[in-house]
């Protein structure tokens, strides 16, 4: 049975999900508020797929076929026949709740509504609908087509059946699915918190330089990237807001206290690679 996929929000994550869904032979309805946003999103998918073709990961034909499966939608009511709808809009609880209320009315009564939130409560988003048992978190990681993992997040009222279906769909999308309860940071953002925060604390104690910490973590620990390189890649603004969100939601458990050093980086506008200045300087000389 062919499952049809709807995606709300054609930004980075929405485009990423559309990309892998189309490549895995799903029909995708990609929705956003206007043609221009969608056009740019499909252009980005096109660009990323081309890179995969260049790396011989997919064939030129795979790419052409996949792109035909992405339907551009600017009317949200067109998602009424989708079996699952992924939400990938702004990380704002009010925006998401309003959207889910609307999707609850539009979507087929058996459809699964999946939020891609990384920090907000799935339980709270689900409570905006009349069918919270059909709402689930499906946390993809950026870049979606490269990172294997999807966290399947069980809200307080998410049914076991919905969890199973969501995991099955994630696997059909070529992903590794893990199940997690709806707690702050789920698994990855929570367990990797000390990877960043302890490194920042060591830096704060002036035990060594950040370049040295990165070198040690990679060459003594065997990690692919050092914490400071990774924070620069993710963006210090994004990293800090995730850390602050977990800290707030954990009712200020001191284990999750964000770092003053990172806060200062954000205040200084040193976001990382995206604006060429973070812990490292990326300005071309």
């Amino acid at each position, binding site marked *: 049975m062919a499952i049809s996929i709807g995606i709300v929000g054609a930004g980075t994550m929405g485009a990423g999900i559309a990309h892998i869904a189309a490549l895995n032979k799903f029909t995708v309805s990609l929705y956003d508020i206007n043609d221009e946003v969608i056009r740019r999103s499909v252009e980005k998918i096109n660009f990323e797929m081309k890179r995969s073709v260049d790396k011989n990961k997919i064939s030129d034909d795979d790419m052409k076929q996949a792109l035909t499966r992405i339907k551009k939608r600017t009317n949200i009511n067109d998602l009424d026949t989708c079996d699952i709808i992924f939400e990938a809009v702004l990380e704002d609880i009010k925006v998401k709740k309003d959207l889910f209320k609307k999707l609850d009315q539009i979507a087929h009564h058996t459809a699964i509504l999946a939020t891609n939130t990384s920090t907000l409560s799935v339980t709270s988003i689900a409570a905006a609908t009349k069918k919270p048992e059909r709402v689930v978190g499906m946390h993809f*990681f950026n870049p979606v087509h490269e*990172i*294997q*993992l999807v*966290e399947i997040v069980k809200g307080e009222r998410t049914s076991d059946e919905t969890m199973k279906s969501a995991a099955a769909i994630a696997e059909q999308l070529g992903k*590794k699915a*893990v*199940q*997690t*309860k709806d*707690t702050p940071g*789920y*698994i*990855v953002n*929570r*367990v*990797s*918190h*000390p*990877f960043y*925060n*302890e*490194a920042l604390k*060591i830096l704060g*104690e*002036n*035990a*060594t330089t950040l370049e*040295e*910490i990165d*070198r*040690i*973590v990679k*060459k*003594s*620990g*065997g*990690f*692919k*990237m050092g*914490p400071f390189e990774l924070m620069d890649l993710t963006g210090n603004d994004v990293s800090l807001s995730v850390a602050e969100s977990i800290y707030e939601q954990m009712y200020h*458990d*001191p*284990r999750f*206290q964000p770092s003053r050093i990172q806060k200062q980086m954000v205040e200084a506008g040193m976001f990382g690679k995206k604006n060429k200045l973070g812990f490292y300087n990326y300005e071309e000389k």
Partner: protein
Amino acid sequence: MKKQIKNKKTKVTAAVREKPKAQPVKSKPAEVKQLICLLGDEQLVKEYSAALQEKGIAVQELQNLASLKNSVKKITAAFELTLTANEQKKKNLLALSEALPANVPIISCAVTETILSQSHLLKHPERFIGIAAFPTLFANPLVELAPSLHTSKEIADNVKALFDSLKKETAMVQDSVGMVMPRILCQIINEALFTSQNDVASPNDIDEAMKHGANYPHGPIAWGEMIGFANVVAVLDALYNNHHEERYRVAPLLRQMAIAGVFWRTKE
């Protein structure tokens, strides 16, 4: 028990070399056979011994302190690899400092106690240097070293040269509990155990998530098992005692695993 492997290619720096009169062979004064003595935790001694021998270095694993006497003149460097700051470690360090000539470096695991407090009251504290000896890490290309306030530049340079000859990079860090990698790693494992204890996800899913979602070389719980949960707890307790901060509180489940020596998952 002596384990020696000859390798003529091994070069030794001038300062860790013994005095010329101790050398029986006149024709090759530059070729001094290195002998590194190892004592401490079995797991670490095994890892270090295997890695050193692989590079053609002669190694003596000291089973007890009495056997130190027989080889004391041939030893060019000593590793004390007891992770936990306990009475045995103190005895070992005392014996090494009494027996070995002042120019022989003593490289001691300084993960749960600073090298300064380990060596401050011993003979020649300037020849002690800390190392982030921690299970599973020595196979990797870099070692972390921590000189104390007493450590001489000469000794630090010699030990660095020793690792250079082993084709290992070194990083000199401040002499502080946990050093860098063991400290970060133990905090990650601790949070993984809190996550497991809170029943957020299964241990297996936690490990899979970190490998596939964050590119970790091992799942943190499996990694903790490889290291030994008791060793992880020893580092966290030392950090807690040093900082008096809640962030180093050991997950109760982790402490239980440390006592039991296993994770329940392995019994399934």
